[in-house]
């Protein structure tokens, strides 16, 4: 089954699209308005984020909008996600991000996910949202599946590696 991409687009693109869709407008970031600040918390029910914008359009004033940032753990309920291709060590979450995006149908940028060095082969790794994400809830996380599923484990459950540091895969 092909991956569906309901969360495709960079976070900032998705936020701008949300602002325009709800307001039936087509304003462009940097041309028509600037985003001044995005902060956690909002006074309206059903929202958890306040975004302050500055208008550059004559006759229209600056203001705020409130919306809801989702925790990235919502990916747990999806059944169409691929495994992330992990084939060399050491690596890092930021280095893997293009592959993570491909497998999960996302367009996350490095500044909105926490980096972590990966030196050991595992079947899952944790993707944690940083404080800078406009669309995803900071601090939320998702343990993504890797392609290291069919590997040989030792008695302690650790993945056995070849001399080159790659996991020993089961022969089919």
């Amino acid at each position, binding site marked *: 089954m092909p991956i*569906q991409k*309901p*969360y495709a687009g960079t976070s900032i693109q*998705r936020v701008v699209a*949300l*602002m325009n869709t*709800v*307001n039936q*407008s087509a*304003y462009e970031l940097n041309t*028509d*308005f600037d985003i*001044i*600040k995005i902060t956690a918390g909002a006074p*309206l029910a*059903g*929202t958890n984020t306040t975004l*302050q*914008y*500055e*208008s*550059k*359009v*004559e*006759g*229209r*004033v*600056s*203001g*705020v*909008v*409130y*919306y*809801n*940032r*989702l925790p990235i753990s*919502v990916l747990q*309920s*999806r*059944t*169409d996600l691929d495994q992330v291709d992990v084939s060399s060590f050491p690596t890092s979450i930021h280095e893997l991000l293009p592959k993570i995006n491909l497998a999960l149908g996302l367009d996350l940028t490095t500044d909105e996910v926490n980096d972590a060095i990966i030196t050991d082969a595992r079947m899952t790794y944790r993707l944690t949202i940083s404080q800078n994400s406009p*669309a995803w809830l900071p601090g939320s996380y998702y343990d993504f599946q890797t392609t290291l599923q069919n590997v040989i484990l030792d008695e302690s459950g650790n993945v056995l590696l070849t001399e080159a540091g790659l996991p020993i895969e089961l022969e089919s």
Partner: protein
Amino acid sequence: MQLFRLLVESQNFDRPSVEIALDLIFASTGYRGEKQYIKFGLPEHCDPRPDIDYDPNTFVPAVINTQFDMRVFGSNGFLYHRLSLDTIALSQPLRIWPNQYPFRPVDVLTQINEQLFTQLDETDLLDIEYTEPGTFKLFAGKHSLAWRGEKEFMAMEAGAPQYLFPVQKLTGFTEVAST
């Protein structure tokens, strides 16, 4: 001087005036206080050298909790520099749409703060009445801890403000299930 420039250039004014005042006091005097341990009196204009930028222009009495700082006890005060409302930068003129005329600044505080990215309260602005549409000035309240001076604004015809994004509550984001 550098600290004042830093504060003005950062435009970090989206916080209560007492917090801005503590930064201004630090920039003027080098004293770093914490708001929960300082009780301020009413600030008064006091500008012996008005021609010098960022020179102290205000005196505020203050009582500092000795549990926070034993060096200062009893009644004290700070001579510091309050910022002009005009230092708040805007790319568009400040426009106010009152519900009706006449109106007072306190009636339109939300609009003012949303456009200035501030947390001004009724003490920060002079309580005067504006009776008709036109270009006027907002004046800082005499006893504002952080602000002095004035800022021009346009009083529009009574009605809802013309925000770039009029719908403030966005219905999103929502979880999407696999199909």
